[in-house]
């Protein structure tokens, strides 16, 4: 590995991103009504249990065969599956994507990689949303209560719910990757 350059620090996304980052179709990784389409949804909470109405989530995912999409076209979707989407939370702190369920890549567990941004949050955070029944060494290595925060819940209507707790008793496990300070 060559010499590492000092990274540019992150800063909060602030309150004024809604005219810039969310876009029409951003939360629809597949069109509604697509065979196998599923809603991935949830609420973002702060440390008092109050919903966070000015958060932004991005998901990155494989397709149902476990392939990592490298197709362009996320901003002006034309039917290609790009495996990336973006959704702001609403006034109730809720977000929702319409997508398909990923398979694991290269035999790994199936999860959505999730980036969380919000006013009041000074840097972006990474987490994983594991599909029901999936596990791997990382998840198995966490205390049970922490692992639970990374598990997607299948609702009675078949949708997938993944709540994010920025702080508190049910605080979501957030990730740090090697070579990164955060």
């Amino acid at each position, binding site marked *: *590995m060559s*010499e*590492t*350059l*000092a*990274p*540019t*620090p*992150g*800063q*909060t*996304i602030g*309150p*004024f*991103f809604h*005219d*810039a*980052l969310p876009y029409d179709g951003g939360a629809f990784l597949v069109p509604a009504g697509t065979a196998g389409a599923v809603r991935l949804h949830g609420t973002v909470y*702060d*440390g008092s249990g109050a919903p966070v109405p000015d958060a932004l989530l991005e998901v*990155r995912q494989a397709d149902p065969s476990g392939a*990592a*999409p*490298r*197709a*362009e*076209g*996320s*901003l*002006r979707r034309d039917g290609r599956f*790009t*495996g*990336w989407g973006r959704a702001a939370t609403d006034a109730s702190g809720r977000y929702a994507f319409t997508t398909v369920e990923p398979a694991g890549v*290269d035999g*790994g567990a199936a*999860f*959505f*990689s999730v*980036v969380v*941004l919000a006013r*009041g*949050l*000074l*840097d972006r*955070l*990474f987490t*994983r949303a594991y599909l029901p029944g999936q596990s791997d060494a990382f998840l198995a290595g966490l205390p049970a209560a922490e692992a639970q925060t990374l598990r997607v819940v299948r609702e009675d209507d078949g949708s997938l719910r993944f709540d994010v707790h*920025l*702080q508190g008793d049910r*605080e979501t*496990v*957030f*990730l*740090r*990757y*090697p*070579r*990164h*300070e*955060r």
Partner: protein
Amino acid sequence: MDSQARITAEIAEAHAATPPGGAQPRIDFLPYRSSALRHPTKDLRHADPEGIELVAPVFGHSDVDPVEADLTIQHGGEPIGERMLLTGRVLDGDGRPVRHQLVEIWQANAGGRYIHKRDQHPAPIDPSFTGVGRCLTDGDGVYRFTTIKPGPYPWRNHLNAWRPAHIHFSLFGTEFTQRLVTQMYFPGDPLFALDPIYQSITDQAARDRLVATYDHDLTTHEWATGYRWDIVLTGTHATPLERDDHE
């Protein structure tokens, strides 16, 4: 509301209590009041990135129209304010240019007002400026925008709180783990020392990396001033073989 003196004292205390050399903001930085309930209190868990985390989303010319890089021509009239050219390179932590990747920006207008409905402070909206732009980096990792220099603006963190003028940036690398959202500032801003968001980065050298440089060679005769700001993303994890497969 707390006074600026109180916030400034809290900033100094937080800096004194933080080991030197941190490259990233503290997320538990209470002088920024909104952060109090919105940061995790547990340590981040070490994870080896795998699979989808090692692959950034791909953007291309089907996503971004070249005119989106010029924020001064999108609304039929000339915006008020100092026209400026803003350019720089996006590099990964190993110094490689991040090629053909999406860069998104948003900002206040010259009067310090955002188009956003939540910004209600009494500065004028400019009908010729919404302050939103996108571009793709070129084959050398270079981005380039034409815009208007934003003004500082008041906010309600504390009494008489003013944000230094800044432009918000959203960036992707070659891996999703390199996702970066940040803010670029202007050299010599007198509000730097007072701003709890900027000062959440406790290391001066790291703070300096968010400040653009005035570049007279970029400035164009009777047209626009020029600023340069290079961006370094965090390091990659994929092996060179994995990377080369897809370049």
